[in-house]
C-alpha cells in the first residue's frame, strides 16, 4: 500500500544525498497520506480501490530516458511530461506570453494551501502526488494574451509497480485565452495527476483530456478549477484507457457570470472501470454550469458518473444543468449514475437527468428495415450517440480528431461483442 511504501520510502531516502530524494522528503514529511479511501466513503462507494490497495507500488524516480511513446499529437506546440517530470528538452518552445516553470519552495506552499482549501483535500492523489512529484510545474498565460494555436500536453512513462505523479498549476491571467489538449499515455501501474486551474477575470480556457493509459494502469486524476468573474472554462474528457480511470474535477464558481462546461465521454470494454466525478460549487450569483456525459460500455466494464452541484444561499440566478446517458452493449456491463443537487438559493434553474439503457428498438428496426444488418445498425446508432455530444461540446476544429479517437476504442469494443454474439 502506498502509505507503507511511503514509510519505507521515507526511511530509504532519509540519508540519501541525491537532490531528487531530498526534495521528495520535504513533501513527504509535510504531507498526510492516510491510505486509500474506503468504500464506506460515499464518494468512493462506486469506485473501489481494494485491488489497487493490495498492490506494492512505489513512486518512480524520473530519469532522462528518451520519450518512449510516439504520441498522436495534432499540433506542434508540445509540452511533455515523462515519469511525472516536465521534460523541457522534449518540449517545444512556447511563445513569450506563455511561461512554464518549476515552482520554488514558497510558491509550492502557496499552491498547497490553495489545494488544501478545496474539497480535494482528502483525495488520495492530492496527498500522494504532493509528496511524490518531482516538482510542481506552473503554466502561466499572461494578461491579455490570446495564443490562437493549440497547446498539447503529453504525459507518459512509468513502469510496472511504479506510480507517477505529475502536478500542474495552470493559471490564465485576466483577459487571456488558451486552448489545450492533454494526452495521458502512461504505462505505469498507477498515475496520480493533480491539477490546479485558475481562470481569472474574462479569461477563457478550453481543455480536452484524452485518457488513454495502458490497459493495466490505474489513473486517479484530481482537478481543482477556480473561476473568476466573467471567466469561462470548457472541459471535455474522453476516457478510454486504463483498467481503472477516475477523472475527478472540483470547480468553484467564485465570480459572477462565470461559465463552466464539464463534459465527457467514456468508452469502456473488457474489465475496465471508468469514472467521471464532478463537484460544482456555485458560490456567487449569475453563473452557469453545464455537464453532459455519455458512456458506451461493453464486456464486463463498469462506468460511473457522479455529479454534484451545490448552490450556495447567495448564488441567485444560477443555471446548472446536468445530463448523463449510458448505453450498455453487453449484458455484463454496468453503468452507475449519481446526480446530486444541493440548492440553498431560491431563484435558480437546475436540472438533472440520467438514463442507462440499451439501444432504442424503434431506431434499430428502422435501420434493419432498410437492409442494414443488426451489428451495423448498432454501430451506426452508437456512433451517432457519441457524434452528437462531440459535435455539441467540442470545439469545431477538433471534432474529427476526437471522434476518430473515440471511434477506435468503440470499434474494438463492438468487435468483441460481435465475436461473442456470433
Amino acid at each position, binding site marked *: 500500500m502506498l502509505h507503507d511504501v511511503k514509510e519505507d520510502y521515507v526511511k530509504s531516502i532519509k540519508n540519501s544525498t541525491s537532490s531528487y530524494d531530498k526534495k521528495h522528503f520535504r513533501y513527504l514529511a509535510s504531507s498526510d497520506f492516510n491510505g486509500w479511501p474506503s468504500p464506506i466513503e460515499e464518494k468512493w462507494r462506486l469506485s473501489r480501490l481494494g485491488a489497487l490497495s493490495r498492490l506494492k507500488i512505489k513512486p518512480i524516480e524520473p530519469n532522462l530516458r528518451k520519450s518512449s511513446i510516439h504520441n498522436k499529437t495534432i499540433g506542434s506546440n508540445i509540452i511533455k511530461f515523462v515519469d511525472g517530470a516536465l521534460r523541457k528538452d522534449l518540449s517545444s518552445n512556447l511563445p513569450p506570453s506563455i511561461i512554464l516553470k518549476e515552482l520554488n519552495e514558497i510558491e509550492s506552499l502557496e499552491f498547497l494551501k490553495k489545494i488544501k482549501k478545496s474539497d480535494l483535500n482528502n483525495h488520495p492523489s492530492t496527498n500522494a502526488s504532493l509528496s511524490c512529484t518531482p516538482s510542481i510545474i506552473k503554466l502561466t498565460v499572461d494578461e491579455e494574451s490570446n495564443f490562437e494555436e493549440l497547446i498539447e500536453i503529453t504525459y507518459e512513462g512509468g513502469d510496472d509497480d511504479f506510480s507517477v505523479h505529475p502536478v500542474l498549476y495552470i493559471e490564465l491571467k485576466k483577459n487571456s485565452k488558451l486552448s489545450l489538449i492533454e494526452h495521458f499515455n502512461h504505462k505505469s501501474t498507477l498515475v496520480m495527476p493533480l491539477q490546479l486551474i485558475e481562470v481569472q477575470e474574462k479569461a477563457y480556457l478550453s481543455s480536452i483530456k484524452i485518457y488513454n493509459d495502458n490497459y493495466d494502469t490505474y489513473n486517479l486524476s484530481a482537478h481543482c478549477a477556480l473561476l473568476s468573474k466573467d471567466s469561462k472554462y470548457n472541459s471535455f474528457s474522453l476516457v478510454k484507457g486504463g483498467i481503472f480511470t477516475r477523472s475527478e474535477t472540483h470547480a468553484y464558481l467564485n465570480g459572477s457570470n462565470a461559465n463552466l462546461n464539464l463534459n465527457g465521454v467514456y468508452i469502456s470494454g473488457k474489465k475496465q472501470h471508468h469514472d467521471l466525478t464532478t463537484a460544482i460549487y456555485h458560490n456567487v450569483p449569475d453563473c452557469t454550469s453545464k455537464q453532459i456525459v455519455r458512456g458506451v460500455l461493453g464486456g464486463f466494464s463498469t462506468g460511473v458518473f457522479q455529479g454534484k452541484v451545490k448552490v450556495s444561499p447567495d448564488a441567485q440566478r444560477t443555471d446548472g444543468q446536468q445530463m448523463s446517458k449510458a448505453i450498455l452493449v453487453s449484458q455484463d456491463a454496468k453503468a452507475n449514475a449519481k446526480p446530486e443537487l444541493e440548492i440553498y438559493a431560491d431563484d435558480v434553474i437546475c436540472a438533472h437527468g440520467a438514463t442507462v439503457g440499451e439501444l432504442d428498438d424503434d431506431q434499430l428496426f428502422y435501420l434493419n428495415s432498410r437492409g442494414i444488418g443488426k451489428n451495423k445498425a448498432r454501430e451506426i446508432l452508437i456512433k451517432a450517440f457519441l457524434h*452528437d455530444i462531440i459535435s455539441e461540446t467540442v470545439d469545431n476544429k477538433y471534432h474529427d480528431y476526437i471522434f476518430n479517437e473515440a471511434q477506435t476504442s468503440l470499434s474494438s469494443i463492438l468487435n468483441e461483442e460481435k465475436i461473442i454474439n456470433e
Partner: protein
Amino acid sequence: MSLLEIRNACLKLDGKDILKGLSLSVNEGEVHAIMGPNGSGKSTLSYMLAGREGYDLDKGEILLEGKSLIEMSADERARSGLFLAFQYPVELPGVGAMSFLREAVNSRRKFLGEKEFDHLGFVKEARKEASKMFVKDEMLKRSVNVGFSGGEKKRFEILQMAMLKPKISILDETDSGLDVDALKIVSEGVNAQRSKDNAIVVITHYQRLLDYIIPDFVHILSDGAIIKSGGPELALEVEKNGYAGLINAS
C-alpha cells in the same frame, strides 16, 4: 407465381389474436390497397411483413418470389426487395441522411450483386433522385428525420423507396399527417415507381389517398382478416357507407 403471397397468416400480440387467417396474393405490376377501420390489424400486418421482432407469425406463410420470409430477419427481407414506408418515420439523431441512404442502398446492391456506390458516385445519384421528390440538398445534410416536417418525412420515405428499388413496397398510412399539396407530391413519387416488375401495397384508413394512387385491387381488412375484395369502386363504397355497413354485410 405471385410476387407476394400471404397464406392464412395468424398472429397474436400479448396473447390477443390480431391477424386471424389473412390471405392475400399480389402479382408484379399490381397496386393493392388494404383499407380498414382502427384496430383491424393494419399496422400489425405491415410490421409482420417487414419482420419486426415480436411480430412473428404463429401460423401461416409469407412468400416473396416463392421464397419464404418467415425465417428471414428484417434486414434480410429488406435486402431481398421488401420495403416498408413507415407511418411514423423514426428520427435518428446524429445519423446523417446521406450516409444512411448510402448504407441502405449499398446493402441492397450488394445483395443484387451490383457494384456498391462510392461516396461521390452516391452523392450524385442521391441528389438526382432527391430533386425528383422535392427533397432539398440541405435535408440530406441533416440527421435522418430530425427536424423534418411531416411532409418532408414522408417524402424522404419515398426517396428511400425510389433508391432501394424494391420488388414490393408496403406503404403504411403514408397519407397520415399530409396536407393536400404534400399528398400530391408523395403520390406522384409513388406513381413514378409503378412498373410491371414491382408491386405496391397501400395501407390506408381513407379513400383520399386512392384518388392519387389508383389501385388495381381494394381489400377490406376487418378483425384480422380480409372480408371483401374488389376494384377501386370498393374504396368509394367505403367512403359512402363507412366500414360498418360492409362489415355487417359480411
